[in-house]
Every structure is written in C-alpha cells, then in structure tokens.
C-alpha cells in the first residue's frame, strides 16, 4: 500500500502549519477592473487581498513570504511576545517594525518582510534567544526539526557575540509522568501554557518568576496531569518539552512518517504515524480542521507503545492441543478453525455460531468479516459492540450531525457518558465551542461530567429515568421533579431548547443502565425537537464503520449480551472473538465469565494476548494499527485513511485476509485478493478518503421514526437502603492499549466510589473512608469520595480499573443495578 507521502509532515512543526490556497496577484498584473473582495495589502511587492481581520502573518504566508515566528500558533490566541515576526509595516504613517502575528491587515498597508530593518530585527531576536539557550543541538531531541535551529540558519546572525556565562538550571525536570522540561532550552513562547489554559482547560503549568529568571513550572508536587499534555511537546518550538516515551529514541532524520487516523477512540483524529527502523516512535497530531484541529489526547498519542510491546503481541497462530495452546502454521490453524465452525454448523445450524467484536478493524476488514458471517457462515449473531453501546438501528438510524455542526449548534444536548474520558478531543472541541459563546450545553447525565462546569444546565437523573427526563424536556405541561432532577432545571433546559437546531450527542451514559432507556430518550427527542440532529458518542475505534459494514445483529440475531447468555446456557457451539475481550470489556463481568466458560469452540482473532483469548481453542494472529492499511469511520461518519507504517510481528495477517482465508478453508471464496478490492466493493475511493477524509451520506439503517419507544419498561423502585449504580469509564483503564503501554499503564487511578455528600452523611462516612459495596454477584471494599455531582440515591463507580469495580456489580439481567453500602 502506498503511503500518503506527499502530505506527510516532516517535523512536529510542519504538522501545525496550514497551507491555504494562494490567491496572490502580482502588482503589475493588477489591471482587472473588478478587484477581488477583501482588504488589499502589498506584501513584499505583491498585492494580496486579505480577509477582513486576517493577521498579517497569515496573509504573508499566502503570497509565499514566510515570516518567522515562535510564539504564534494559529490555534492559540496570539500574544506577540517572542518578537520574531517583526516586519516593517507602513499603514500610512511611514514604515514601523510591527509584530506580524498581532497586526490585522488594513487597506493599502505596505509590508516589507525582508527589508534591512526587518532582517536586523529578526537577526537580533534570534541572537537574544540564543543568549541563554544551550548549543546542545547534537544531543537534543529536536535537533533536525527545530524551528529555532531553522530560523537561526535562515534569519539569524552568522556568529555569536555572547561571551558571558549562560544561565544554568537543573534539567530536565518532570512536569508530569509523560512530559519533561529542560528549562535551559525553553524560549518562553507561552505555547504550552496557553494550550494548557485556553484549549485543555488544565492551567497546571504557568510562567513563574520574572524577567530573565522566568521559567515554566507546575505548582510544587502538583504535576501537569492533563489528558492532553502531549500536545505541549508537539507545540514546543524548541527541545524544551520532551515526552518520556520519545526521549532519545530517534533522530529526526531517521524518521519515516505517514498520515493516518487514530483509532484509540472513535473521534478520528488525524495523525502522523512515525517510525524509526522497525519501531513506531511517535504519533503527531495533524491539523484537520473538521476533526481534531491539531490536538490529540495522551492516550491516543502514546498508545503506539502497546503496538511496540512485543511481549504482549501475538505473532504466530496457535491451536489448543491436549489443553495447551501450541504454535502452529497458518494452514493448520485455519483448518482447525474451519473445522470448529463447520462442526457447529453441521450439528446445530448457523444460529449456534456467534461473532463478537470488530470495532478495532478497518472498514475493509469489517466488510470482509461481515461477508464471511453472512454469506459463508450464515449467522446473524454478529455484534461489534460489547453490550456497552446502543442498538445499531439507533446509532445509524437517526439524523446525523457532523462534529462541526455540533460545535456550531446553539444548543448541544449531551446524553452521553463523560466525553472527556471517552472521546477526549470531542471534549476539547465542545469546550472551545462553549467558551466562544456559540454553544450552550444541556446535559442529561447520571452524574456530573467534565463538561458540567461549562454546561448551561445539567440534569443529573437516576439511572432508569433518562427517557422520562427527555420526555419532560419536550413536554408543554408544567415541569415536575423527576427523582433528583428538579422541575426548575427542567424548565431551564426547556428554555435553552427553544432555539431550534439542537444537536444531541448520544452515547451510553452509564453501562449500569439498560440501553433501552437511552435509546428511548433519543427517540423522544428526535420526535419532538424540530430539526434535531444526532452525533454519536460511541467510543470504540471503528465501531461506526463496523456497524455500517454489517457487524451488527440482524433480524433475530443475538447481540453480544444475547450471545453470552446463549453461551452460558450451552447454546453457542462456536464463538469467534474478533479482537474483542469480553472478559474485561463487557459491563456485566459475571455474564462474561459464564458466557466464555460455556461457549463451545472458541476462535480468537487477536493481535495481543488478552484475558478472553487465553481460553480460545484457536488463536489467529492479526495485524494491529499502523501495521495495515485501509479506512476507518469516525463518530460523524467521516471515512479517512489508516496507513501501514511498520510490519506486524511474526506472521500476523490483516483481518480481512484472515476472513478471506478462513472462508477458503470453509470452501468458499469472498472474492477479494487485495484490500483495494474491498474498498472498491464498498465504494470507498482513494480521493474521498484522503486527507481529512469525507463524511459520506448517512448509512441509514431502518427508519428511526418507526422505531418503537419502550418507555413502558418498568423501572424497579429504589429501596431506602440501596444506591443506584452509575458506572463510568476512565480514559486510563485496564484496557489493552493503556495496560500494555508502559508510560500510560501507571496513570490508571485506583477505584473510588463517589456518592452524594448527603448520602454519605446518612451512612456516617466521609471522603477517604472504606466501605463495603455489595451487589447481586459480588461484594468488596472500596474507598469512598464525596461528590455533590452524583445525585442523591446514586453511587458512581468506574469500570475496568481494578479486579473489583463496577463490572463486578452490574447485573445486565436487570435494567438497573442497585447496590448497598455499609461502612467497615
């Protein structure tokens, strides 16, 4: 597969530079009678029509006059402090040195970016920056891709006149577990600090001291623990900020790079995947305007460690012999897998075969597997979700909004889990939209989220009551309290929703509450809010592509919960785990255990050893992210490319190829020789999936307005001794990518149960105390934390962070899970 090499950024800095179309017209050619719209400005003798309010530094770029800069970054508020961009500007009162990053183009402005005075000023700034900057380029990670080095070469003085001793500082110092700071190299451009404050909302780093003693620091013993800290490393124009995983790992000139799409979550951030030798060494954010706008979360950015982690990867097919998994050839493994499936088909028919997983596949992989399931095996028991999502008909059947539409909507209704934990860069986009004053947020959530401080109204409901709350929002009758949701807050939310054009961000707010309630809530909003659109908040990498490709139960087919229940009662003769680990990922841990134990012949198509696959009869090694090419589909339905950069370990294959070969072993032919064959069959063209990719027409499955609402499902009453469980996912959990990335693994926080202070008071416990929490299947001791964001009567516990967490308590046979808490 060819890489998209033309668009590949060469360095961290390049990734952030945009390259808008040139609309420059040379002065002498300017005879056209109708001047183009805009502000006429002459830059280095070339007339350009700038947009109203456009900054000079941007307009100059368009006529090919690159003005050097350090502090300026188009995604950050300009501060004009490095003074590198000084150029001579004549606004009618004679030429004056002005910072191009602050000056807006005004009519008939004349600019000389390379005049003698401009060059002297630029020269001077470089010299000043080098006064206290160590000349350790040969050992600096940034050497070779350093804007300071490059600008020194292009704009700087030839030699140093500085004979004084430079300032020395202890270095490097850790800002967090992931980011280190070399204060001697820092040129105080304010990029990291502006990012932390303006974009991430985590102002945990600041300038400290003053003048030449100024330095970046955290508060003592309070690290820069931001989910977005890695962006500061990419923003740093020198080698002052380095990430622990990357430090000293590579030299920029050895780096190969290709553009791809991150699949750590379903947001679809555009990235540059970089390798050195045979290893992945870095992901950089690419500035995709409709999607991630340059940013990445740290989980996505550093998850390449998991792919590099050969200790946990599977590279060879394995078959269970005499109770032990033994490495075998592909031929033997495929034969064994085919036999297992065939036996099940022969003895119990297609409905005894189930396929769980597929959300980590590419669209092409998913398409091949869907075809295998449908045309060859003939089963409808296929589900890429792990009982933690929403019905495919709801995800694919509601009118769809793009990310940009959501961020420009007057009101965003969040009926979703904490998006900072699950779709971190969507959180950044929404945070930006709220702060810009464009968007108001109304939250329908079982517990306060990271967006709550910015929300206009937050309705914290009791699990099971989501649909009632949604119905109340679109009702005309006087508002009434619904459990912990007050009538006043409903009235306030109604007020906000009066402006048409709302976008609902729809996910599964808590896996301890049945999906039906949430689906019903969405359907009510769809029916009653004129012009409403939906943006999915399902988080698994390519869940939207997999659903669209058909990895969803059809007709009478079982979903993951159904398959596990069938397996538990001995009714699933063959189970394929397609990159899925129900043992750790299905909300109801007990069901997962019973299902996996009761399943018949089990085939795991896996790229690393995980809890569920260790039980399998056959393991088929699959290539992972960055080891294969294809496309992926994000939450808004945008199809963009993922590319291969390194080779998979051992003899691992791409998933589509495994499907094709398995079909062959079953005596069928899927008809694909290459991944391009599949793209062609899917109608995905190279151009459409290039760069930012394209949002295709919504793949509507059924008609949402015809979907039945189940508001009638009875919600069990909450007894006075119990609290209703809310389960929350954390960005850093024991999932595969975090657990096997050494730098991320120790960021997993210990479990704490959060409950309303008044409930805790009733129980006579305070923050930090130990309590015993008991559910239908389990009982264990946890630490409690008081949290007014959890409504009265509820208890919040995370999932997948410890052996005993919300998953041990969730009982998926009941629409909600109630737990009891006693102090110990």
């Amino acid at each position, binding site marked *: 597969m060819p890489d998209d090499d033309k668009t590949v950024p060469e360095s961290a800095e390049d990734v952030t530079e945009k390259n808008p179309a040139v609309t420059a017209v040379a002065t002498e050619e300017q005879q056209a009678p109708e001047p183009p719209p805009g502000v006429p400005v002459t830059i280095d003798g070339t007339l350009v029509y700038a947009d109203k309010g456009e900054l000079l530094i941007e307009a100059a770029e368009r006529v090919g006059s690159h003005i050097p800069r350090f502090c300026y970054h188009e995604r950050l508020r300009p501060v004009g402090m490095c003074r590198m961009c000084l150029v001579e500007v004549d606004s009618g009162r004679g030429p004056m040195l002005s910072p191009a990053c602050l000056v807006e183009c005004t009519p008939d402005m004349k600019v000389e970016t390379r005049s003698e005075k401009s060059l002297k000023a630029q020269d001077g700034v470089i010299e000043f920056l080098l006064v206290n900057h160590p000349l350790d380029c040969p050992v600096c990670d940034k050497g070779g891709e350093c804007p300071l080095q490059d600008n020194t070469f292009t704009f700087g003085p030839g030699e140093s006149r500085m004979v004084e001793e430079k300032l020395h500082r202890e270095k490097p110092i850790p800002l967090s577990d992931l980011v280190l700071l070399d204060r001697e190299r820092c040129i105080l451009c304010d990029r990291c600090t502006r990012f932390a404050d303006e974009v991430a909302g985590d*102002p*945990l*780093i*600041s*300038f*400290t*001291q*003053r003048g030449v003693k100024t330095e970046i*620091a*955290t*508060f*003592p*013993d*309070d690290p820069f623990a931001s989910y977005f800290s890695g962006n500061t490393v990419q923003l740093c124009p020198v080698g002052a900020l380095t990430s622990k995983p990357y430090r000293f790992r590579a030299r920029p000139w050895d780096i190969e790079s290709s553009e791809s799409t991150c699949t750590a979550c379903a947001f679809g951030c555009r990235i540059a995947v970089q390798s050195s030798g045979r290893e992945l060494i870095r992901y950089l954010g690419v500035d995709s305007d409709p999607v991630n706008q340059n940013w990445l979360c740290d989980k996505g950015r550093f998850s390449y460690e998991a792919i590099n982690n050969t200790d946990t990867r599977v590279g060879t097919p394995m078959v269970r012999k005499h109770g032990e998994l033994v490495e075998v050839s592909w031929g033997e493994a495929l034969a064994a897998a085919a036999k297992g499936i065939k036996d099940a088909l022969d003895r119990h028919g297609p409905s005894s075969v189930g396929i769980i997983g597929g959300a980590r596949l590419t669209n092409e992989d998913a398409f091949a597997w869907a075809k295998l399931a449908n045309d060859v095996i003939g089963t409808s028991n296929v589900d890429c979700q792990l009982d933690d999502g929403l019905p495919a008909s709801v995800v694919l059947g509601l009118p769809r909004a793009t990310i940009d539409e959501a961020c420009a909507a007057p009101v965003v209704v969040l009926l979703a889990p904490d998006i900072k934990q699950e779709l971190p860069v969507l959180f950044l986009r929404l945070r930006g939209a709220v702060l810009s004053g464009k968007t108001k947020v109304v939250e329908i959530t079982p517990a306060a989220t990271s967006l709550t401080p910015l929300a206009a109204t937050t309705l914290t409901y009791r699990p099971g009551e989501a649909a009632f709350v949604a119905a109340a929002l679109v009702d005309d009758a006087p508002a009434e309290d619904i459990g912990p949701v007050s009538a006043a807050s409903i009235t306030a939310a109604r007020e906000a929703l009066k402006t048409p054009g709302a976008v609902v961000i729809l996910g599964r707010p808590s896996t301890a509450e049945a999906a039906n309630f949430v689906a019903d809530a969405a359907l009510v909003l769809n029916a009653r809010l004129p012009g409403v659109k939906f943006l999915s908040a399902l988080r698994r990498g390519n869940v939207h592509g997999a659903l669209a490709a058909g990895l969803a139960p059809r007709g009478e087919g079982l979903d993951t919960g159904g398959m596990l229940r069938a397996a538990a009662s001995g009714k699933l003769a063959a189970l394929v785990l397609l990159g899925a680990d129900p043992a750790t990922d299905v909300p109801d841990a007990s069901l997962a255990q019973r299902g996996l134990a009761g399943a018949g012949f089990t085939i795991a198509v896996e790229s690393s050893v995980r809890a569920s696959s260790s039980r399998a009869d056959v393991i088929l090694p699959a290539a992972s992210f960055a080891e294969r090419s294809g496309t992926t589909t994000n939450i808004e339905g945008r199809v963009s490319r993922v590319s291969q950069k390194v080779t998979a370990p051992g003899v691992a294959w791409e998933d589509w190829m495994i499907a094709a070969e398995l079909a062959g072993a079953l005596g069928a032919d899927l008809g694909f020789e290459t991944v391009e064959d599949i793209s062609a069959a899917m109608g995905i063209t190279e151009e459409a999936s290039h760069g930012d990719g394209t949002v295709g027409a919504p793949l509507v499955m059924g008609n949402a307005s015809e979907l039945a609402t189940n508001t009638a499902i009875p919600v069990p009453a909450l007894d006075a001794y119990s609290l209703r469980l809310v389960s929350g996912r954390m960005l850093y959990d024991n999932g595969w990518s975090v657990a096997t990335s050494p730098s991320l693994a120790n960021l997993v926080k210990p479990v704490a149960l959060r409950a309303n202070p008044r409930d805790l008071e009733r129980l006579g416990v305070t923050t930090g105390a130990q309590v015993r929490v008991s559910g239908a299947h389990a009982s264990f001791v946890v630490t409690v934390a008081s949290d007014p964001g959890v409504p009265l009567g509820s208890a919040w516990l995370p999932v997948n962070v410890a052996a005993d967490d919300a998953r041990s308590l969730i009982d998926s046979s009941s629409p909600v899970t109630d737990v009891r808490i006693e102090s110990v």
Partner: protein
Amino acid sequence: MARFSANNLVTAQAIIARYPKPRSALVPLCHLAQEQDGYLTDDAMEHIGELIGCTPAQVYGTATFYEMFKLHPTGKYLVGVCTNISCMLSGAYELLEHCERSLGVSVGGTSADGMFTLEEVECSAACTVAPAVQVNYRYEENVTPESFDALVSQLRAGTRDDIPPHGTLARVRQTPTDRWANSGQTGEHIA
C-alpha cells in the same frame, strides 16, 4: 497553620467581594496569607486558588512574579536598602556594605538570630530623602551608618511598634463594604 484561619477567611471573603471577579483578589489574598504566616506557604496558595477559582499553579505563577511574596521564611524584619540611582548617588552602596557588616550577613541573607533579612531593593520612591531604607516596608529616610545602627538596636530592643513583623502590610484595611454594584442597583450583575 497555613490555610487561612477562620478570622482571615472572613477577611478573605470580604476582599473577594470587593472585586467584580474573584481572581482580582489574588494579590491581596497573598498579602493576607503572608501576614498570617510571615511568608507565603504552599497550603495558603492552594487555599487561595480554591477561594478565587484558579489552580495552585496559577497562584504560584502569579505570586512569584512579584518581589514582595516570599516563599520561604524571612527574618522578622525585612531590611530593604535602595541602591537605585538617587540613593546610589547619595551613598547607598557604602551604606549597604555597612549594613552587611553591621548585621553580619550578605545581601539576601538572614541574620543568625533570625531577626533581619537584608535585601538590596529598587527605587522605593524616597529619592528626595536618599539614601532610603525600608524595614518591613516602613520608611527610614536619609539613612546614615549611625542612624542605621540605632534603628537596629531599637528593633532588637523591641521599641519600634510602628514597625510590625514581616508580612503585615497595612494595619488599616478598607472596611468590608458590599459593593453597591452587587446590590442590584446597576441592573446587571457583573459576571
């Protein structure tokens, strides 16, 4: 004790109430904390952050910008000798050397008895009565080696109650008053 005491918390809240936005109270609250503890402790910075709605890093970053906030204990009396131009022309450097000898410390140091911390400071706005020395920000004008030594003896003897211990900035505060703008008079609350 490093977070605000109950009394100081009341004062802190009154100070915050005087500004349209709580963060404006950052510097005055740092003074209050320094008055309470003699220097600005980490706990106090965290408490201030909580009160005005910003991170400890923001309090720390702001506090370290300003000369007057000391992140470590100082002597009971902070002696600031101005050596800027007018004082220098009137012999401030010679005076500073005398102070060093007399207190037995070099600039930046604290005397062995913990009484005095000596600083060289920038123009104190006492240029016409140079050289000037500030002790805990109280002025001594036209200071001579002799008058300096006399001052030191008085401070040691505890006969200068016009000079409170380090940290106390002003002994008279603006009395807590509700801003009339908060009383709804302006029709709009200032966000």
